[in-house]
């Protein structure tokens, strides 16, 4: 029984991975700059993702752990975002501000 359970979880992970990669490619093809912004990519990452063939995409997505990461992984930031201000009407704007001010994920970690 636990095997089937972990298998569906594994399938879900791979599905999310594949959808994520395909979405990333689509966003970048439609509008490179805006896509980079939405994904939080730097141009080197964006270029690599864009050049991946479908076969490579599937291979990359086949990992047993998620290949996309949570972009708001900062304790203070996340708690500021989830606190209820004015019934949450500003939350979207707030997260856009905070997300766009993070340095993009890069192949080589940028020196702060």
């Amino acid at each position, binding site marked *: 029984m636990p095997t089937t359970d972990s298998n569906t979880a594994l399938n879900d992970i791979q599905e999310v991975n594949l959808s994520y990669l395909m979405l990333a490619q689509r966003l970048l093809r439609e509008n*490179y700059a805006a896509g980079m912004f939405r994904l939080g990519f730097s141009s080197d990452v964006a270029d690599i993702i864009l050049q991946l063939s479908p076969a490579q995409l599937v291979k990359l997505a086949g990992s047993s752990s998620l290949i996309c990461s949570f972009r708001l992984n900062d304790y203070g930031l996340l708690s500021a975002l989830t606190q209820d201000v004015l019934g949450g009407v500003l939350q979207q704007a707030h997260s856009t501000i905070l997300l766009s001010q993070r340095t993009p994920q890069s192949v080589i970690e940028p020196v702060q």
Partner: protein
Amino acid sequence: MAVKSVAKEAEEILLATEMIRLGARLQVLQAETSLSYDRLARLYREIRGCSPPKGMLPFSVDWFMTWLPNIHSSVFYSVYQYLDTYTPAKKSRALIEAYRLYLEQAGAGRSTDADTEPVLSFTRAWMLIRFFESGMVQLSHCVRCTGAFVAHAHDPSHNFVCAVCRPPPRAGKTRPRRVLQDGE
């Protein structure tokens, strides 16, 4: 006078067209392209079907500091900064793309009345970038959420709390959209 390249001109007309569609005033187009006033005015009439508005641009820095405009301009400017810094879209391209992304975000919360004016107009967005370039405004980091928000230049920023983390007591109680109808 330098020899004008036709390709360059075509490019600038396309750029101006996009900006007019987003609501740019003639002054913005004159600053962003090298096209003549007459051509720009004609282009404007062709796209909008009316004469370009006359008069001065709204040029108050204080407008960007009031509560809701401040949040809207901070959204726009952080998007612009990201695009201009990290993506191949620079300057006027970044302005157009950032304004589109801003419109998308600003419209996200209020789908019921789609034809209302956005809080931050394209011309104001362009002014904001000018203000940043001339050092009249700066980004201050909120001590609570670490986000950077538009603020007066040289304002002390060590105890700054942003408009989202500490909204004014009456914020959201009046109908915020109505408050912002002044200016443009």
